[in-house]
């Protein structure tokens, strides 16, 4: 196979695995936004908090899956607390909610810097996804098993969310709430409990993706901005509140970032933004978003 093609296939695979991570991060963001119209500007900080919790949990247990579960659970609790303590008190005021979560992101970032310092941490991948896998069409003929595992993790997250949204009672409530919150409430459903569930789930997904990301890449104090940006761009391109949109958005962003990095290293982010602007020019609500 010619080298140029092997390079391209490797870059595409890198893009898809990065997209898998971006999807898992953005899924929580878009879920929360879809139901509650709450823009959680602290989503990148929750990712970072989840990653650090994962680092500590891995140090304590030595078990990657335990770190993943603890990262999810801890952030679900934190998210629930943020929702109950702050955001539910200003329901419907989306600008104020965005401002409050910006304040929270500053506090979380600073406290994490105080606790963990400026060092870079990485979690060792689990035994079942360690090392590399032989793939004939990529550079050197091998590829990181963990990065392939991330694709599986993203598919699993998508599948679970799809099942919850489409096959469970709370999923009915969530979908009905996205369509007409007041009518759902009038039908006797305790909407504030649904909100609490969704916010905790969204924050938990941020924590889960933090552990996954800290294993694949690493975690250091300024990562919150990067993942807030990726989540924003993914949902802006894909359409806010749409899970399928997040899949498409994550693929576009992950691929354009990796392809850009390989072929035009200092302009890769610029390419991402040209795509975003082009999508917005044609569909202001994003590719799969519904008109607001």
């Amino acid at each position, binding site marked *: 196979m010619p080298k140029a093609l092997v390079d391209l296939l490797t870059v595409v695979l890198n893009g898809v695995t990065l997209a898998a991570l971006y999807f898992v991060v953005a899924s929580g963001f878009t879920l929360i936004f879809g139901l509650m119209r709450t823009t959680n500007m602290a989503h990148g900080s929750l990712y970072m908090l989840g990653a650090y919790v994962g680092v500590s949990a891995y140090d304590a247990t030595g078990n990657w899956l335990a770190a993943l579960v603890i990262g999810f659970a801890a952030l679900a609790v934190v998210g629930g607390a943020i929702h109950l303590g*702050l955001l539910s008190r200003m329901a419907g005021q989306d600008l104020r909610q965005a401002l409050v979560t910006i304040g929270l992101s500053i506090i979380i970032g600073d*406290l994490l810097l105080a606790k963990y310092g400026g060092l870079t941490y990485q979690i060792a991948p689990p035994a079942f996804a360690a090392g590399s896998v032989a793939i004939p069409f990529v550079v050197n003929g091998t590829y990181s098993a963990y990065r392939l595992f991330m694709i599986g993790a993203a598919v699993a997250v998508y599948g679970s969310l799809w099942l919850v949204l489409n096959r469970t009672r709370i999923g009915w409530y969530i979908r009905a709430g996205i369509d007409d919150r007041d009518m759902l409430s009038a039908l006797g459903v305790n909407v504030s409990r649904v909100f609490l569930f969704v916010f905790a789930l969204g924050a938990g997904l941020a924590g889960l993706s933090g552990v996954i990301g800290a294993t694949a890449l690493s975690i250091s104090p300024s990562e919150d901005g990067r993942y807030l940006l990726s989540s*924003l761009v993914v949902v802006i391109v894909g359409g806010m509140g749409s899970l399928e949109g997040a899949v498409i958005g994550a693929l576009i962003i992950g691929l354009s970032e990796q392809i850009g990095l390989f072929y035009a290293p200092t302009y890769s982010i610029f390419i991402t933004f040209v795509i975003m602007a082009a999508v917005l020019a044609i569909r202001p609500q994003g590719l799969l978003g519904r008109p607001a």
Partner: protein
Amino acid sequence: MTWARSQQGITTLAIVALLLLYPQVMPRFWVLSIAANSMILGIAALSLVFMAGYGGMTSLAQAALAGFAAYMLALLSLVPSTNATGSALGAGLPSIPGALIAIALATALGALFGAISSRSYGIYFLMLTLALAVGFYYIVLQNYDVFGGHIGFAGIEGPTGQPREDPPTFYYLCLAVSAAIYLGLRYLVRSQLGLTFQGMRDNPRRMAALGYRVGAHRVALFGIGGFVAGISGVLGAWYRGNISPGILDLNRTIEVLIVAVIGGLGYPIGAFVGAVLYTLIKVFASSVTIAGFSFDERFNTLVGLGFVVIVLVAPNGIVGLADRAYRAVTHRSGARRRAVDPLAVEAGLVPAPVAQPPDAPVIAGDDVPTGS
């Protein structure tokens, strides 16, 4: 002339005299690090207050636009051979023409951002402008060919030379520019164009139905925001003498937002009040340690907590609080604060509300109709 008006006139005169005398009596640190720095930050926050308060466009791209102007200034005014970073870039223009072109380019970039976001409202607009700002930061950080990567540029000098060597002159430059922008924007919001902006803020769909080109006006408003932010960026570059991606990172973006919110998003003067307060806290918190809690190390936690508290208890900021207290004391609250049912007015049940003057905007954002 009524008593209230002459009282107001005397207050204004006293403030102007104080501002003019200030650099003559205060030490260099207070003239530059506190006053000039506050004004530069205040102008950036004013561009946000103007867009949010009068156009309903809460833009988080203002720090990026200011930083863009600073980079353009560096590229236009540096001489390649004397460039401290060893980069071969720089057009070698004198400082004033370089600054004017840089501000014009920031205006153009603002208009471009406006074109990208012209169909997004409220929270969508906020997210989009944040994405544009953070994206621009990463472009600057990543690009060594044009923006000098994480090093940036050094050796930028303004028309007044090094601010350190002549603090009063640089102070007067900042003061004159701040005053000109403040008065200019106040004039603008009372003009036909300013009223159109406020109409769009309150109901874009109705304005479109009346025949106004809402999209074009939003682009123009963003252009004005880019113009004001660009001026702040140019002054900031002259003040520091060097620039790096740090001047437009997420922290700076949030800093501008915090200053605007502390002062009050609906009050133009609040931008400067917020900037002075923020700068004072930032400078003096560093020397305070209470019970082992160093305010220097945990400054961001302090700022974040303060910001959350302000958003929770005083959404209209310090100036909003002062305004309310003043109205309560002088009993001038009354009808303009209360929502009055027009049918009740027609029926003669309640007096008609006093028309709201154009310089006291209502903060839109939560209730802006979405859709175009």
